[in-house]
């Protein structure tokens, strides 16, 4: 789980896209997923997500993200299928309309989440921050906050795993409990996680201040992020996706 948010070095077509284009492509896929109401189009968008992962040379990561989302998707599918009352019953209280709605909901969830995770796999966080500041004119403190929050996710997951390991060694039966019981055991551990998170955030803030964080402006970065031909191609593809989502 930890490495799901870490950058995978590479020189693929997707890696070479401008970070802003990658953000734009991600947003377009999300908008398209919410614009369309057709199951087939959503399946097509999922195929696009998977294809992006394969072209970027991160097929394993893509598969891991997909597999991780499937667990949540299965739970949501079941919930939607059981709660939707419209349509003709096909099995017990499950209706055909319920199944269709559940299918759309989970496909939408997977389609939206995958590019968000993939963009982090193919873009360095620093590039993402710098491009947001330089190209999108986002104020540096906001871009830094966003990128730091993303950077902290794997660290917090690692910290949580470490806390659970330490508690297991003290006799807390994390290694035997399942489901709700395990969840109830995790709750008291939120205190040490919260304290370590606040402490880490505070240390990062102090370190950033000591390195002249407040002096940083849009022109501080030496690396430039120009748009190239592949970005134009990606933009055309985005346009195609949006048109398709609206018309189909």
């Amino acid at each position: 789980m930890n490495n799901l948010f870490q950058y995978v070095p590479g020189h693929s077509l997707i890696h070479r896209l401008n970070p802003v284009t990658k953000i734009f492509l991600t947003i377009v896929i999300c908008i398209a997923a919410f614009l369309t109401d057709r199951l087939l189009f959503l399946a097509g968008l999922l195929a696009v997500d998977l294809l992006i992962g394969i072209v970027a040379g991160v097929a394993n990561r893509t598969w891991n993200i997909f597999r991780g989302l499937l667990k949540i998707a299965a739970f949501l599918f079941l919930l939607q299928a059981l709660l939707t009352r419209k349509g003709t019953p096909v099995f017990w209280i499950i209706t055909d309309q319920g199944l269709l709605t559940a299918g759309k909901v989970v496909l939408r969830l997977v389609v939206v989440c995958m590019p968000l995770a993939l963009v982090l796999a193919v873009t360095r966080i620093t590039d993402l921050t710098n491009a947001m500041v330089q190209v999108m004119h986002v104020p540096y403190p906001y871009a830094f906050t966003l990128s730091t929050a993303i950077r902290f996710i794997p660290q917090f997951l690692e910290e949580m795993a470490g806390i659970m390991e330490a508690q297991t060694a003290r006799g807390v039966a994390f290694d035997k409990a399942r489901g709700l019981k395990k969840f109830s055991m995790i709750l008291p551990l939120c205190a040490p996680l919260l304290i370590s998170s606040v402490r880490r955030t505070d240390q990062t803030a102090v370190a950033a201040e000591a390195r002249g964080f407040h002096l940083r402006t849009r022109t501080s970065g030496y690396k430039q992020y120009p748009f190239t031909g592949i970005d134009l191609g990606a933009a055309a593809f985005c346009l195609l996706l949006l048109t398709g989502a609206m018309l189909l």
Partner: protein
Amino acid sequence: MIELEHVSFSYADQGPSVQDVTFRLEKGEFAAILGANGAGKTTTVRLMDGLLKPTSGRVLIHGADTAKSSVSERAARVGFLFQNPDRQICKNTVREEVLFGLRTVRGQDGEEALQERADAVLKEFSFTGEEEPFSLSRGQRQRVALASILAVEPEILILDEPTTGLDYLECCQIMDRIRRMNEERQVTVIMVCHDMEVVLDYARRALVMAGGRLLADGPVPEIFRDTDLMERASILPPQMIALGLRLGAGFERADSPEKMAETVLSLRGKEAAR
């Protein structure tokens, strides 16, 4: 007794971290695992507690394979002090923290007995019990973590860099307490440590690792006197040993200030006799 039989371990998508490690620790031993960063020391101690399962080979605690039981079941017999005490501390007061470990593994003893045990441990570690663990200094938090582990009276104590980030006094307080427990209750202690002075002062046996392999296993002073081994394992021996080796003329065997003084007096005696 802990026994590692041809244990190897690899993390996912990485080369082997521990390769074919075999050794046996008897009851009451005080051993230290030495080596540079990435030598496989922490992985080895995590394998010993069953926090990691060996890729091949077996880890036996009192003859039972750790792969066949859970870590939480072993907590009453095996205590593990982590490098970062904040991962262990999860309660609002030191008393609650000590009681948490006791209730988890000694719940069957009854609340009254647990309270008595907590009182004794708090007194021993000079805590009132009402202190907030997260407001304490790093060294004090490490002492809280150690107190909550020792409260359950484990037979085996695994320490992963217990003195990192501590000042000299805090380091001595923690290590003296561990030595007392080792000597009085015959608790088996195995520690990973980068401070060779601490190793020389407290451990009796040293296991040297490099590149995931066990290079040497023997008494601490003997290990430190093997200059080739120290170089291969990228370890700088304690100053007392290094000085003794440099001086020669009988000082090679001096591994403490007392022995150094004894050697000086003996040499003076010989000189006077001549």
